[in-house]
């Protein structure tokens, strides 16, 4: 029987969080958080260290109990139906939650058995996921000998064994090098294409932009902004094109030339004197091409050119008018 594909427009809420609060001693880790994740979509939860991201994920996976508020996952309440809830979730943390001393295959087999698969099914499911996550060659080696990326992939595979309806990815690429990070992103994108609902926490705007449909920005346990990625980008500013003229004295002339040309979005162009660059908000790829063509046609010499995404700091600056708090240590509770 071929199951029905989850339709993206189903509108059902896979995760519903209302007024969630949790304090650890004097510190309010979560201070009344509301959020929703629609079925089959990816919600990015963006925030600095100490914002409450991990606390949120730990409550949603029944590892800790909230002090106030409600949270439902696939219709199951975290407080009153934890057993049912555990059947529909998968969790991948920033620290790989696999048994280091067991081989990749043994880890996946064990989890299959704990999810009530028969021996045969547990074996074939393990092999299937090892294959999918390119771990077949390393299947018999203990996980402690895996590279960081392999471990994270094994962790993702472990979360997928029960085909969870809702997957939590808690900072899935923190501490990974760029190449490995891309591997993890590709895997997540595949899962999403296959219909998984994902709640992703991250410190990186770039990661949220790559993976998430909607974004909730939290800081010190509170939601400070939410919406579709493009809406938020409009608010905080999206990509900027940065052009460094070959001769710094050309800066005003370059800016003037761009302004005259009357291209889309060019009105936002500014010159950064200290930096010696012209900044242009990027609206579309066509606009980028047009700008480069224009500068070339006018004979400007260009020493450097590139697009730049707002960093977490810049997002916070735009949303709150203040720098992101990075000092709190309590966020990684139990980590």
């Amino acid at each position, binding site marked *: *029987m071929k199951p029905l594909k989850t339709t993206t427009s189903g509108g059902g809420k896979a995760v519903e969080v209302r007024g969630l609060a949790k304090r650890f001693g004097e510190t309010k880790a979560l201070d009344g958080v509301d959020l929703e994740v629609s079925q089959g979509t990816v919600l990015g939860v963006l925030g600095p260290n100490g914002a409450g991201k991990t606390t949120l994920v730990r409550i949603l996976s029944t590892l800790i109990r909230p002090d106030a508020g409600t949270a439902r996952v696939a219709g199951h309440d975290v407080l009153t139906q934890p057993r049912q809830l555990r059947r529909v979730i998968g969790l991948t943390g920033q620290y*790989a939650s696999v048994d*280091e001393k067991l081989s990749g295959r043994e880890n996946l087999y064990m989890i299959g*058995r704990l999810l*009530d698969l028969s021996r045969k099914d547990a074996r074939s499911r393990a092999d299937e996921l090892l294959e999918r996550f390119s771990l077949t060659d390393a299947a018999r080696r203990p996980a402690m000998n895996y590279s960081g990326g392999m471990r994270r992939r094994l962790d993702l595979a472990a979360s997928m064994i029960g085909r969870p309806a809702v997957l939590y990815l808690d900072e899935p690429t923190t501490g990974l090098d760029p190449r490995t990070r891309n591997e993890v992103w590709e895997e997540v994108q595949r899962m999403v294409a296959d219909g998984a609902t994902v709640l992703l926490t991250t410190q990186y705007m770039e990661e949220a932009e790559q993976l998430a449909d909607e974004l909730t920005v939290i800081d010190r346990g509170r939601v400070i902004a939410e919406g579709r990625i493009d809406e938020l980008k409009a608010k905080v500013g999206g990509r900027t094109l940065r052009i460094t003229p070959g001769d710094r004295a050309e800066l005003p002339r370059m800016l003037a030339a761009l302004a005259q040309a009357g291209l889309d979005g060019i009105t936002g162009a500014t010159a950064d004197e200290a930096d010696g660059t012209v900044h242009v908000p990027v609206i579309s790829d066509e606009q980028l091409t047009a700008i480069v063509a224009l500068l070339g046609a006018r004979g400007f010499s260009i020493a450097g050119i590139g697009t730049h995404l707002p960093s977490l700091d810049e997002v916070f600056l735009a949303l709150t008018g203040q720098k992101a708090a990075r000092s709190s240590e309590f966020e990684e509770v*139990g980590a």
Partner: protein
Amino acid sequence: MTAKRSVPVEVGDGRPVGVSTVTAAHDGRIGLRANLRHIGALARRNLMRIKQDPESMFDVLLMPVIFTLLFVYVFGGAVAGNQHAYVNYVIPGLMAMMGMNIAMAVGSGINDDFKTGVMDRFRTMPIARSSVLIAKIVVEIGRMLVATTLLLVMGFVLGLTIETSVLHLLAAVGLGLVFGASLMWIFILLGLTVKTAQAVQGLGMLVLMPLQFGSSIFAKPTTMPGWLQAFTKVNPLSALADANRSLVNGGPVAHSALLTLAWAAGITLVTAPLAVAKFRDRT
């Protein structure tokens, strides 16, 4: 199952989600068969960890050899006049001591084990949380059986004789395992409570030494001062050692054996739920 449960999120190979939910009861409780399967899978994990780290078996393999040689040859002459007479006194006692030492190792092992990330995964899975602890105990009982067997082999080499029957000997082994398992709950609770494995060792030794030596394991309490005799009388290790001795050498068993079982039941009833609660709430 609720409607949401069966949302066919399909991942990978086109089979529907929820393979694992078929056997679940409506309220998500874990049935007995599923529970046994989970304990089996987790026990297998503990065995694989031993295989990966064979040095963790050193205690079980060396302790019986060193203990028997040490106590029989160092104390034998002094306590019982000659080594041969002491073998039949001390070996049944050492069976009791073995359980205590292995139980302590469980406490320090669990402290390290439970700091690893995989415990978070277990806690987010639809399994009874007690099964993680019970699996550990099942494997440790196996280790204890290995140690006891070695101890008896050493005993026979040094001249141990069974005055009763093999069945009596097996009963002694069984009694030791039951009591040892109850001690494991204490040390699991301790291991989940204190911060480091070293602290478990330190605290464990503090409790272990007086309990082991203030008992009838090594010497007849009648040679001890009154206050110490009083302590050995209430010491459950004395009861176990006495029961084992009677089972091996003949003599009245019922009182000491029942006392041992009562202690084991009492300890388990108090500490096992506390340990499971501790495991559940540890974040």
